[in-house]
């Protein structure tokens, strides 16, 4: 389905509140509140007009004011894609896990937790797996993070 059909279909059929973000990419971009994430994901995964089976990417983003979790999904059979994201408070970022819907979200969420500090409720094992076990310097990919032995890139070249 084309971008407009997708947008109209989702806005009519999805019960929760869906807000559209303007972007000139060929795929629609939605903003969902954190509470409705699991419902929205289950809707686009199970609906037979959408069948969004592939969770391509789930990335945490630190926009200094608040934390965002961006999901990219695509449907293999119907060849269309979808962006959607949630905005979370910067300090206590919490969202429900979508691991039951897309099994691949397991590691994406663990990584977002480890590098950004976004907490995913209901995730089976939110443990450290990229950084060394004795890592005590917090979440490195945050914008306000300063590392102990990180050598800054010499500017002004």
């Amino acid at each position, binding site marked *: 389905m084309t971008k407009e059909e997708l947008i109209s279909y989702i806005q009519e059929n999805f019960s929760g509140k869906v807000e559209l973000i303007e972007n000139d990419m060929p795929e629609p971009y939605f903003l969902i509140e954190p509470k409705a994430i699991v419902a929205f994901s289950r809707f686009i995964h199970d609906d037979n007009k959408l069948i969004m089976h592939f969770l391509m990417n789930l990335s945490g983003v630190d926009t200094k004011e608040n934390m965002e979790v961006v999901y990219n999904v695509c449907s293999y059979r119907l060849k269309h894609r979808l962006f959607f994201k949630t905005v979370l408070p910067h300090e206590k970022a919490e969202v429900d896990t979508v691991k039951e819907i897309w099994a691949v979200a397991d590691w994406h969420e663990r990584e977002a937790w480890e590098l950004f500090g976004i907490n995913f409720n209901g995730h089976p094992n939110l443990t450290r797996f990229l950084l*060394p076990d004795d890592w005590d*310097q917090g979440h*490195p990919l945050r914008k306000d993070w300063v590392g102990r032995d*990180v*050598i800054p890139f010499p500017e002004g070249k």
Partner: protein
Amino acid sequence: MGVNDKLPVHAEQSPGGGIITTELNKIFTLTQAKSLWYLLFGTACCAIELMATGASRYDFDRLGMIFRASPRQSDLMIVAGTITYKMAPVVKRLYDQMAEPRYVLAMGGCAIGGGPFHYDSYSVLQGVDKIIPVDVFVPGCPPRPEALLQGCLEVGKKLRTQKIDDWRVR
């Protein structure tokens, strides 16, 4: 250490022993140089170049070097690739498990000094010589197979200058 720690002591006491140890030195270090078995230890892009050097065009076997999977039987450790802080204790333990006389060749920019990940990286160890003594550095990202072969010959040259019971001093 095998024969090397007892032999020089007895040889020196016997008359004209000095000549024996120097001749022995030459022969023993020559055989070490001619058959350096390297430990198959590659972490990143340089590991692919290490495999390409082992393949038919730039053959390691010409220099008498075959790869050994276990650190006990290898005497040259080619650190090929980036060593992160999580990998550092593993590298240290592998180096300790190797049998004396052992040598280390740091291959590629990452093993020498963090390479392209020198700046802004919170998880890369800036150079493997911070944890283990390195004998030869082969720069490049990744270095060409010819450079790696040259590095192995350099290890052989450096090794020829050492005395056979030198490991006690080091």
